[in-house]
């Protein structure tokens, strides 16, 4: 597989992943662009597409965390369209609320949730992307869920089964 084939076929998935991390389309585009440049530079070491994808995801994640620290994305979060706190998890406003609360999580916790519950990676796989131990992944996910439960309210949490 050539780099062009890899980039063309995986660009959409990588962009969606970056968007879930950054919460902003422009930042997601920049993240993917920067990560693909690094992948291109190291392509001769990453001939296996699986290696290339894992490497690109790792670059997106670490770059996002680094940018987040330097640029303080949280301060730029728009909240005009966030509805009142929902009472029912089936209510569409629950997902809007959850999305908004996800943006407020620290980047490593947000990345851990996206990798575990969107990418469906195992804990060891998530640890590899984040460059940390499995134990750290467990604690990051646990802490993140705890914050979300607190912010969403007990009614929604109980109905949505988020107490697991």
């Amino acid at each position, binding site marked *: 597989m050539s780099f062009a*084939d890899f980039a063309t076929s995986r660009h959409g998935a990588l*962009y*969606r992943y970056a968007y879930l991390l950054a919460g902003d389309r422009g930042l997601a585009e920049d993240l993917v662009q920067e990560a693909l*440049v690094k992948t291109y530079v190291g392509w001769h070491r990453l001939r296996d597409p699986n290696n290339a994808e894992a490497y690109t995801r790792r670059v997106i994640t670490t770059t996002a965390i680094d940018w987040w620290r330097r640029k303080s994305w949280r301060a730029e979060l728009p909240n005009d369209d966030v509805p009142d706190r929902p009472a029912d998890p089936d209510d569409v406003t629950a997902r809007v609320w*959850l*999305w908004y609360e996800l943006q407020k999580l620290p980047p490593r916790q947000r990345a851990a*949730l996206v990798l*575990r*519950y969107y990418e469906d990676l195992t804990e060891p796989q998530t640890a590899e992307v984040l460059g940390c131990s499995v134990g750290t992944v467990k604690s990051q996910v646990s802490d993140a869920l705890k914050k979300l439960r607190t912010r969403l309210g007990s009614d929604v949490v109980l109905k*949505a089964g988020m107490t697991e």
Partner: protein
Amino acid sequence: MTDLLRDTLNERADGIEPPPLDLDGIVAAGNRQISRRRALTVLGGAVATAAVAVGGATLIRPRTPRPQPARPAPYVERRAVTFALGNKIHYGSDVIPVPSKHINAFVQTDAGFVFLDEGNNIHIADRAGVRATGKGTWRLTADHRGSLVAWVEDFNDHCESVVYDVAANRELVRTPAGNAIPANASLAYGPRIVAIDGNTAYFGTLKGLYRWDISTNNGELLAKVPPDAVRTVSAGQLVYQQPLVQPAAGHTLRVGPTLTTGDRTTFAGEQAFLSPGAKYLVTQPNDASAGPQPVWSDLQLYGVTTPTGRPLPRTSYWKFRFGQWLDDTTFTAAGARHTSRNEADLLVVDARTSTYGVVAPEFSTYTFSKTAPRTTPFAMPTGAPIYDLG
């Protein structure tokens, strides 16, 4: 974990449309990084080589070739009817898509096509694929034959004339000669590449016309004339304006091996396209309407050695755009029809008989995009973009 969390993430991810992939930009940025690393490697390598020489051993590793986007391979040594439409180059019966949004301008060389994208970034489409050079310019110039292309790059206080070999994938000439920009000056007429004629390049600089020997990378100032005083050069024959030193376009043209004002035939027209053997001259008078650029209007065809000629009949067309000399007697042009939709036909003109045939009827329209940079849907292989300032 909860369905709510998964639903939220999936809903957000599914709800966005990824932007177009800028593969050329990625490859260009990657190549710049690699170049910087190689420069550092060479520097470090010099130290390492010295150390290894003491030990009497040398290790040479083969370099892994860089990956390139896979694209159809153009076979471009033959000059065929060629035009660009949107982001595709049409070359004879071949269609070569490029990953840019729009081709503003392009030229053909024996080693591949060179084009400017919607941002006037320079790209090369050859047998290896499509690659960005990382450079930008307003206009490209190529010879009738060979693999060379040339352009001018702008900087804050000067411009540089560049000659690039598409086959060798490297710059042969880069010089600021004659192109220092005086302080607090606003340039009305910027420098340009007049022509590449075999192994000689002609640079229309702010100081005057330079003739540059590409093989030795040395040049000489031929005459202190405006950058566009000489229109083109083929087979050692220069096409230059009269009066020669008038800063704006002169009113007529002359052809000869030197820039004398002696007893030479005068040709009507402002823009010039000389055949490869300098046997025929196509001129285009400037249009009084300054909106569409370049301001070319009619096509006039002249014999240089046996001066005869006249404008091509306009029966069906109100505007012509020169394309390319296919050989020493035939050339292509686009003609805009007298209709409300301004359909454009692609023509092949026989200079011996002053007749033309339509080879691609309605291949495009002579219209301009509604948003900047207001270009036509098509480009002809002259290296100059067609756009509207009106």
